[in-house]
């Protein structure tokens, strides 16, 4: 294993079952500080579930997740202990997440969406939170929409707001769960632009995506998942130009044909 000082996320021997389906059978992954990892693979391979295990949105039966030294063991979801809940919350404070469906709060304005967690969770002064939020909105060119409701925004705008809503919590890790899959094609670019900007700033990032070109551009490392298993991992150029695994090859040929 690499130097723990430099490791941000460690996933070790994770087992997860849904009902009767045994998805992960001891999956492991290390992510270094500042590293950008793209996770690709066919649908149903467990990419999203893998991300959601990292910030405790999904439970798992065996193994552990360590984020910046905070250890999360398997938890009893129906009756979690106080300690488990505390660990999950600590991890969530370090890890931001962007969803395919944006999940903005429809009853709040854009600005309220962004300052809600900083004010209520971190206890930041409301005025300071607003200032920070406006700065973030300026970065994505949406400061004029601060007082709009999410329903008045386009999909691309909503996803950009969702990204800065996560950033307002000053996370050390960002998880992107297919951030562009729900978008109309002409809006994909603006969202990718924001993500690239963020990644360029040195944020530790895990991104699940179907966009291979984008993965190749932004990722330091590409992880290929199939049937709950990491079948190949390597530099983007290695994976995309010269994949070693047969299943990787067939997946890439299928997906590149489509794109």
């Amino acid at each position: 294993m690499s130097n723990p000082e430099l490791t941000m996320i460690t996933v070790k021997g994770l087992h997860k079952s849904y009902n009767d389906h045994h998805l992960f059978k001891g999956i492991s992954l290390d992510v270094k500080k500042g590293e950008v990892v793209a996770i690709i693979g066919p649908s149903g391979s467990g990419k999203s579930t893998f991300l959601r295990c990292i910030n405790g949105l999904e439970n798992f039966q065996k193994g552990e997740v360590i984020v910046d030294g905070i250890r999360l063991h398997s938890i009893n979801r129906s009756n979690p202990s106080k300690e488990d809940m505390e660990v999950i919350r600590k991890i969530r404070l370090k890890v931001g997440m962007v969803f395919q469906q944006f999940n903005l709060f429809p009853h709040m304005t854009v600005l309220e969406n962004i300052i809600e967690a900083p004010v209520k969770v971190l206890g930041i002064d409301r005025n300071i939170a607003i200032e920070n939020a406006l700065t973030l909105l300026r970065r994505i060119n949406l400061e004029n929409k601060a007082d709009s409701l999410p329903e008045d925004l386009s999909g691309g705008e909503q996803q950009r707001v969702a990204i800065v809503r996560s950033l307002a919590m000053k996370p050390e890790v960002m998880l992107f769960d297919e951030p562009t899959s729900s978008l109309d094609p002409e809006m994909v670019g603006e969202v990718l632009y924001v993500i690239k900007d963020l990644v360029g700033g040195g944020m530790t990032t895990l991104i699940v995506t179907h966009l291979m070109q984008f993965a190749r551009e932004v990722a330091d490392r590409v992880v290929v998942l199939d049937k709950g298993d990491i079948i190949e991992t390597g530099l983007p150029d290695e994976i995309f130009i010269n994949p070693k695994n047969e299943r990787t090859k067939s997946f890439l040929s299928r997906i590149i044909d489509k794109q």
Partner: protein
Amino acid sequence: MAQEDNSALDKIQERGTLIWGADAEGGAPYIFPDPENPEEYIGFEVDLANAIANKLGVTAVHKQNGWDGLVPALERGDFDIAMNGIEITDERKDTILFSRPYYIYTEQLVVRKDDNSIKGINDLKGKKVGTLSGTVAQDILENLDGVDVRIYPTQVEPYTDLAFGRIDAVLLDLPIAAFYGKPNPELKYAGDPVGEGLYGIAIRQEDEELKAKIDEILAELLRSGELKQIYEKWGLWNEAQDKLYEQMKEETGYTNANLEKSQQAPISTNIIMVQENNSALDKIQERGTLIWGADAEGGAPYIFPDPENPEEYIGFEVDLANAIANKLGVTAVHKQNGWDGLVPALERGDFDIAMNGIEITDERKETILFSRPYYIYTEQLVVRKDDNSIKGINDLKGKKVGTLSGTVAQDILENLDGVDVRIYPTQVEPYTDLAFGRIDAVLLDLPIAAFYGKPNPELKYAGDPVGEGLYGIAIRQEDEELKAKIDEILAELLRSGELKQIYEKWGLWNEAQDKLYEEMQGENGYTNANLEKSQQAPISTFFPALLKGAALTIVISVVSMTLAVTLGLFISLIRLYGRAPFTSLATAYIEIYRGTPLLIQLYLLYYGLPNIGISLSPWLAAFIGLGMNYAAYEAEIYRAGISAIPKGQMEAALSLGMSRKLAIKRIILPQALRISLPGITNDFIALFKDSSLVSIIAMVELTKTYNILASSTLRYFELGLITALLYFGMSYPLSLLARRLENRLKGKKGVI
């Protein structure tokens, strides 16, 4: 009202029943379900109604009606009279007649046994005193200074509350106090009775003839001591009742004439008793039974085993025997005897009378007496439906005709030429054989034909009835007194319509029976009273009281709804997000509260909890009762709202580091509430109306106020309209609000 041919009195006697209205829910000792046989009502007013009906020669039939609505129902014609502790007031006299008073009631104060601070009505200042609405007691209490008057819906509850310590005293009519208050070991009478009022029988204004008759009967019952007997039976006799006699003395006219008449009556009765100490009539009354001979094997419809209960005999002669025995003040006992031997057995003294379709013939008259005829029978020819050859008795030549032996029908048939008469032993067989085609016709008494022939789908009547005979009750030759009495009773039964009723019940009534009436005199002297409406106070005089009730309704509704939405939210959150045992508890709460009536919940809360030492004030019971009930419904509305929020909302909130609690509070609930709001508003409207149920726990809200006002003024219609308008005025703005909320939600995309 259209003029009618018959007066009320005529109608009563024609139908043979006196229909009287009273509220059995009102309770003891007036009229209430017999504890030993809850389908029967007992009470001193039941006894009185029976006594009056008896004097009228009819049967008393009780008709249930809520007390508040007795007078309107009487006016509507639902019953002949209303008698249910109705006080004679000038106000009521404007719209109805009252009989002479039948009871003088006083108001009795009841307190807890350990309470020595209240010694009478003057010690009630600052005390909570329970009573019923629309009573003299209420008037008395409201004219006292500083008394906190609590109005109850029924008679038992104020005493229960008093025993529980919720109120300090109860002031109600003595009969009620005697029945409900006195027997309670924790309660006692305080001071002497106060006030004085008169109970009268309510009669429609136009029925002056009926009023006169009932007044006469009441005077008679009073004079004979029967009335006193009834009151003594129920523990209601007291010195105050002496005034009933005084009042009678003051009266003049026909009453005095009656007094003289009845003063003579007992004397002559006594003479007879002395002279004929061992007469048959005397024996019957001594032993309390009228033994009558009849052959139950003879069959229907005279006397035959009840198909549903073969140990009992039924039949029109059973009914008649019972009616006669009833008039004699005894019980009818049937003694079985073969039909052929009935007369010899009667002579031997086996029974007092024989009654079993025995025809009055000169032959029989030589050995026995007959009462006046009780039925005029004819002979009815019955043939098969498809047989059109026999249209009457003259077409019977060469035909096989069935009948019974020793009947008039047999005589008729044997006097016809060339008829093949077939004699059968019982009544059913000739008709069976006729249906099978074994014989061509059956000639028998109409009662038999009506019971056995007519219902058979293959048979029909042929021609009009022929012959005519009289059924009489056979009595021993020496029992002339009994004959006279039975004749008198039969005349009475005929006059009152009871006899007709019996025959109609058995399908035996026909025009022939009119001859029974010939001796009877019709009544005359119908007077038409003019309906005059009293001048009425302007309706606005009732507004303050109604508005006060409405205000109370609003307070009850708002406070209860606040409790309901709060508690409901709490319950739905536990149900959705709580831990294992609590989730089930929340579900159980919802199911139990939704699955049981609110009324029962209120009763349990207010009257049930004191049994285990928890006594809630009416206000608290109302709030908690309505609030907890509606909380169950609100919980389900919230649950639906919360379930409609996409999962991603919670995940986004959690991934931003929010705790579950914070996420529910800030993200889930604000959205769920918007979805729930129209449903909650709807429930609020429903609660407004359900709030009227709390009147059962002594809360005088709008509906109860209406009840009280309407029952005292009889202005059910206008007051009802105003009350309905008040409810509408309160709930319609809520409806508008609910609609606006719904529209706002519909217009908003992306919320759900």
